[in-house]
């Protein structure tokens, strides 16, 4: 997917004016946020916190042993008849998929939701080669019809109202007009049914890989994951290398924490575990299963001080809790991953130079860290990224020199006090409605209070001596 993160401020400005989108986003995120709290802490606060810690442990320890676990998973999957392939980067992913398509004479593909496939632009790559690719998660299908990118990792059409979806179905699919959500869903079901039944290949992502059994685990609510892995002859799973967990116990905890944190469900409707293609004698299932282990920048993060972000289980709780995301929606972040997750992961995967505003797209309120089910310290990583940005000189000259001047003034108490006095002289005793230059950004939205006639320190000297 194309990276437009450097346009964050201008895209955000536009999306701030889109009341319908913001209403949809606000309603959905606050609902999900509340349901998450209810369910994560159903058995009490202490138990909820213990769950988070246990989930964090499962992911962190797996990350520590990643090479060994990848080895083990590959061996298990291969022994079970699956083909395990490795892709260093996006180009390689697309190349591998096209090779599989050619090898198995595939002409049509049905897809479950996969963020990795968005990262690498898989759909475009396949379509360029004349392969029909149909998204089957209802939200992703809607986006495909609208030719829009997702704006949330769990609820990809969070930004769309019912009427806009209705209009889309009428325009693109000739649906008989209806405002009934159930009817609209059934209509989409019928349209997609035909695609499922005739497709040659199903592509999915993967939520977890359990290394002790090689199981590729996928969670869905709709059943599209099952459809694309049961009907076509070939199943291809694209999984980031960081999705690894060591044991079935770890998986059991995570497959329950994930839906609680994401949508307030105690279990996903379907938790799939794929160990390999169909066995001899089984009545149905894919003849061939391919697992493509994807790096695409993850190993670089592994080696950096930001490795913690690789423990993310993609629940979306951080964006549900984030007041910045709730204000701007997901498209402003300019790539696959929005919200606090995106603010950290996007610069790390695509490069800081292509996502300069993102580490600053946060007031550092800490709500994301509070809700993260694997206890990732997102605010600290944002601060670290800001530091990195500063050192690459990717900073407003005005801000840079303003800070240096400010720092200078703050090193010397006399200068500090003098600066305050000057400010008072310049600004007088009324609130300021308009400040010049860069500072006008403050007064676009708020007054600034007058400086005190006498600073506290001066008053203290006068009243209390030294």
């Amino acid at each position, binding site marked *: 997917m194309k990276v437009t993160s450097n346009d964050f401020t201008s895209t955000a400005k536009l999306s701030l004016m889109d009341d319908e989108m913001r209403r949809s986003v606000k309603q959905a995120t606050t609902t999900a946020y509340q349901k998450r709290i209810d369910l994560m802490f*159903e058995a009490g606060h202490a*138990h909820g916190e213990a769950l988070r810690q*246990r989930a964090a*442990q*499962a992911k*962190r*320890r797996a*990350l*520590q042993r*990643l090479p060994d676990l*990848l*080895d083990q998973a590959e061996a*298990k999957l291969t022994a*079970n008849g699956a083909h395990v392939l*490795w*892709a*260093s980067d996006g180009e*390689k992913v697309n190349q591998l998929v096209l090779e599989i398509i050619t090898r198995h004479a595939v002409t049509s593909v049905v897809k479950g939701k996969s963020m990795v496939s968005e990262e690498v632009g898989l759909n475009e790559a396949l379509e360029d080669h004349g392969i029909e690719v149909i998204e089957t998660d*209802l*939200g992703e299908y809607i986006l495909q019809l609208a030719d829009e990118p997702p704006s949330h990792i769990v609820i*990809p059409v969070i930004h769309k*109202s019912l009427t806009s*979806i209705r209009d889309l179905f009428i325009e693109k699919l000739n649906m008989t007009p209806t405002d009934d*959500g*159930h009817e609209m*869903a*059934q209509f989409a*079901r019928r349209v997609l049914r035909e695609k499922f039944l005739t497709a040659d290949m199903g592509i999915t992502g993967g939520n977890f890989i359990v290394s*002790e*059994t*090689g199981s590729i685990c996928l969670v869905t609510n*709709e*059943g*599209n994951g*099952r459809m694309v*892995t*049961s009907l076509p002859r070939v199943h291809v799973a694209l999984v980031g*290398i960081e999705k690894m967990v060591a044991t079935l*116990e770890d*998986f*059991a905890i995570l*497959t*329950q924490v994930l839906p609680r944190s994401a*949508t307030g*469900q*105690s279990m996903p409707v379907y*938790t*799939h575990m794929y*160990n*390999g293609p169909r*066995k001899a004698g*089984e*009545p*149905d*299932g894919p003849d061939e299963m391919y697992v493509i282990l994807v790096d695409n920048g993850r*190993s670089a993060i*592994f*080696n950096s001080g930001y*490795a913690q972000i*690789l423990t993310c289980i993609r629940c979306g709780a951080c964006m549900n809790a984030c007041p910045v995301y709730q204000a701007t929606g997901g498209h402003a972040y300019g790539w696959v991953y929005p919200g606090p997750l995106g603010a950290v992961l996007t610069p790390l995967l695509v490069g800081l130079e292509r996502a300069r505003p993102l580490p600053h797209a946060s007031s550092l309120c800490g709500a994301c860290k509070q809700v993260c089910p694997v206890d990732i310290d997102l605010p600290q990583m944002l601060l670290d990224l800001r530091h990195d940005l500063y050192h690459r000189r990717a900073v407003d000259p005005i801000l840079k020199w303003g800070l240096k001047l400010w720092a200078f003034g703050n090193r010397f108490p006399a200068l500090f006090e003098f600066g305050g006095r000057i400010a008072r002289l310049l600004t007088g005793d009324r609130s300021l409605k308009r400040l010049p230059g860069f500072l006008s950004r403050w007064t676009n939205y708020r007054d600034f209070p007058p400086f005190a006639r006498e600073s506290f320190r001066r008053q203290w000297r006068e009243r209390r001596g030294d």
Partner: protein
Amino acid sequence: MRKNRDEIMSRLDAAHPPLGAIEGGLERLSVVPMEHLSPQQTVDRFKEQARLLSSSVYVPASADEAIRLVMDLLGDDNRVMSWAFEHIPLPGLEAAFRTNSIRVVSARDETIRVGITGADAALASTGSLVLLTGEGKPRLASLLPKVHMAIIRQDQILADLETWVATLHEQGLDAFQNTASAMIISGPSRTADIAMQLILGMHGPGELHIIILEPTHL
């Protein structure tokens, strides 16, 4: 392609442990803490949780009543998708189908409304069913039709997912390894993608009926 694997692995191996020292352990933790449940409590818990997910749950008083239930749910249908009878713990089902001229069909036929399966386990804490693939256990029976009917024995109901996973370890993971895939089903399919409205019956079945047979019936 070997090259890609080597590249990736060498990049990972080159690092020191990426997260420094990690505190805390991997002790067993139940996501849904439960006191020890008697068999009856287990069934009750399963019923309660399954119903919260909009599954329908029945505990017929006898095998005959169970068969009547199945026939009622089939209505006028005379074609179904189904697991092999040996995998469905309801004695007399095969005979009842013969008597009523109900055919088990294995085609990908959209006109088939009902799919009947057993289960390999059930989970009380979340009202879930565990279905493993294997001979005589078509995946499509619990997937394509709009109605999924699952017939299970009471003793198949385990406390929770953590317990099921523990049994896999006890049996030795080889058995699980030889299974192509496992599906944990918690309720009928659903979506909330259209303006957060909860809609049941998306791509998977829109109705899930679970019939629990007590040991005395079998």
